[in-house]
């Protein structure tokens, strides 16, 4: 794996709260997230030279199919710069970050904006669900009754048979993430839930119950990306380095191969390994998915995952805090914004700005190394876009 030609860092992050905002447009969500990131960095907004805009379903949910980034960022005050639209289902936000980093590494720019915004709540839920199903090959899956919940359920069945994972483990993971979400002012769901309440909620597809699953959400998240050698000249904030941000499409050879390969590439590029990770945000559209994401990332062994969940290993005070933001099921999953919301959470944790949900790193200070895993869509039985990002303080 080749490395980027320049060192790249994040100097500002911002979000619009995730949730249900029927009275706010994508312009509103975008503007708030972008300016929160600009104010967070404390830079003159005129320094931003280019922007990458991630969105998935605005065409279907609002009718704004073309020039989404140009429309929504014009409202946020941006004109006369390159604006590039990015779409790869739920991985779109991370890919916007990655493209921003590559653009800076190319030497063309020093300061680039990455933003993801999504609006999934409509007056018509059936239309929202229909729109979500387009994140597959619609000819082969989306139009034939495929649901992402079923895909998570199938993966979990396999681990339940071979590794002793139980529905109670899954409810514990969901309960942990609901608690984390209750401490996150930007989370969609801010009410803690007991394991019993989660187990007793409506069955969606065994072993998944309603409160283990993400729902529709509106929201936006943003990051200001900068060349490391420029950061200290324009910004007083502690820069958080992007050690690696790897992307690949799924592989036909096996459902899990792509997940492992992209993680291996991310560790190798960063010159780090699973043991170095002190905090992680992983893609858990259904909260129990957290367990198999961790296994694919080499952060735990599948056979030990259940025991580690029982021991509280992945809680805020645990050995490896995971989804401190609440994860997708509690923080919310406005799909084009999710990747950058993961990044915002890692940056806050690594700066020590995560408030009541702040975790400690190995040496009692804030975490030095954080990992985000974000994937999107389905093609021929495996995720369409796979990403792993490693950040370092």
């Amino acid at each position: 794996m080749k490395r980027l030609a320049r060192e790249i860092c994040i100097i500002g992050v911002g979000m619009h709260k995730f949730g249900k905002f029927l009275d706010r447009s994508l312009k509103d969500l975008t503007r708030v997230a972008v300016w929160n990131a600009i104010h967070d960095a404390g830079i003159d907004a005129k320094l931003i030279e280019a922007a990458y805009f991630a969105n998935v379903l605005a065409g279907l949910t609002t009718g704004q199919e073309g020039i989404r980034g140009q429309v929504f960022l014009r409202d946020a005050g941006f004109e006369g710069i390159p604006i590039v639209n990015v779409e790869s289902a739920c991985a779109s936000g991370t890919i916007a970050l990655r493209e921003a980093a590559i653009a800076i590494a190319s030497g063309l720019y020093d300061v680039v904006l990455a933003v993801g915004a999504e609006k999934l709540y409509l007056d018509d839920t059936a239309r929202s669900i229909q729109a979500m199903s387009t994140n597959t090959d619609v000819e082969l899956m989306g139009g034939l009754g495929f649901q992402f919940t079923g895909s998570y359920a199938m993966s979990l069945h396999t681990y339940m048979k071979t590794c002793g994972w139980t529905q109670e483990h899954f409810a514990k993971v969901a309960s942990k993430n609901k608690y984390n979400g209750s401490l996150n002012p930007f989370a969609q769901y801010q009410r803690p839930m007991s394991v019993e309440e989660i187990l007793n909620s409506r069955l969606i597809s065994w072993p998944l119950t309603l409160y283990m699953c993400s729902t529709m959400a509106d929201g936006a998240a943003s990051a200001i990306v900068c060349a490391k050698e420029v950061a200290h000249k324009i910004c007083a904030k502690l820069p958080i380095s992007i050690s690696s941000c790897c992307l690949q499409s799924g592989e036909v050879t096996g459902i899990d191969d792509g997940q492992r390969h992209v993680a291996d590439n991310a560790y190798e590029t960063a010159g780090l390994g699973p043991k170095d990770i002190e905090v992680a945000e992983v893609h858990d559209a259904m909260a129990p998915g957290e367990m198999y994401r961790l296994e694919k990332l080499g952060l735990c062994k599948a056979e030990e995952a259940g025991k580690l969940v029982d021991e509280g290993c992945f809680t805020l005070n645990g050995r490896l805090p995971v989804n401190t933001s609440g994860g997708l099921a509690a923080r919310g999953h406005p799909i084009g914004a999710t990747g950058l919301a993961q990044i915002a959470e890692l940056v806050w944790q690594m700066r020590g700005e995560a408030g009541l949900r702040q975790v400690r790193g190995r040496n009692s200070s804030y975490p030095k190394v954080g990992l985000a895993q974000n994937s999107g869509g389905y093609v021929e039985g495996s995720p369409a876009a796979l990403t792993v990002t490693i950040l370092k303080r």
Partner: protein
Amino acid sequence: MVDLALNEDLLHIPDSPDDKPYLIGSRCSICGYTCFPKKLVCVRCRRDDTMNETKLGPYGTLENYAVMQVGPPDFPPPYIMGYVRLKEGALVFTLITGCEARDAVLDIGEEMELVVKKIREDRDGNNLLGWKFRPTEKGTAL
């Protein structure tokens, strides 16, 4: 109300009692990679001159499945979605029929058979026909 094919290029629908359904896929003449649906380029060799159209099915084994207790419009729950690995090697996403839609009703690895069934209706109330799979021995289609 008439029967219409949902994916005419992907599935052969029998037109007589002696005719059998099959899926239309491709096989690479170099590496043997077999896929569904039909493709003109081999994704393993990344060559455009090695793929030949081939009939796939009707038999395969159940790779995995999930019983859905909620459904999108046109797919009333409960229903079963899953993946079948065809004898020829290709993986197919499919709805599963011919058994009750409840958990633990099927075994991973059990033999499945291709059938042509109504997937959903179009806006005019016509039946859209496509592929489904059913367990080969467990009894009658629903």
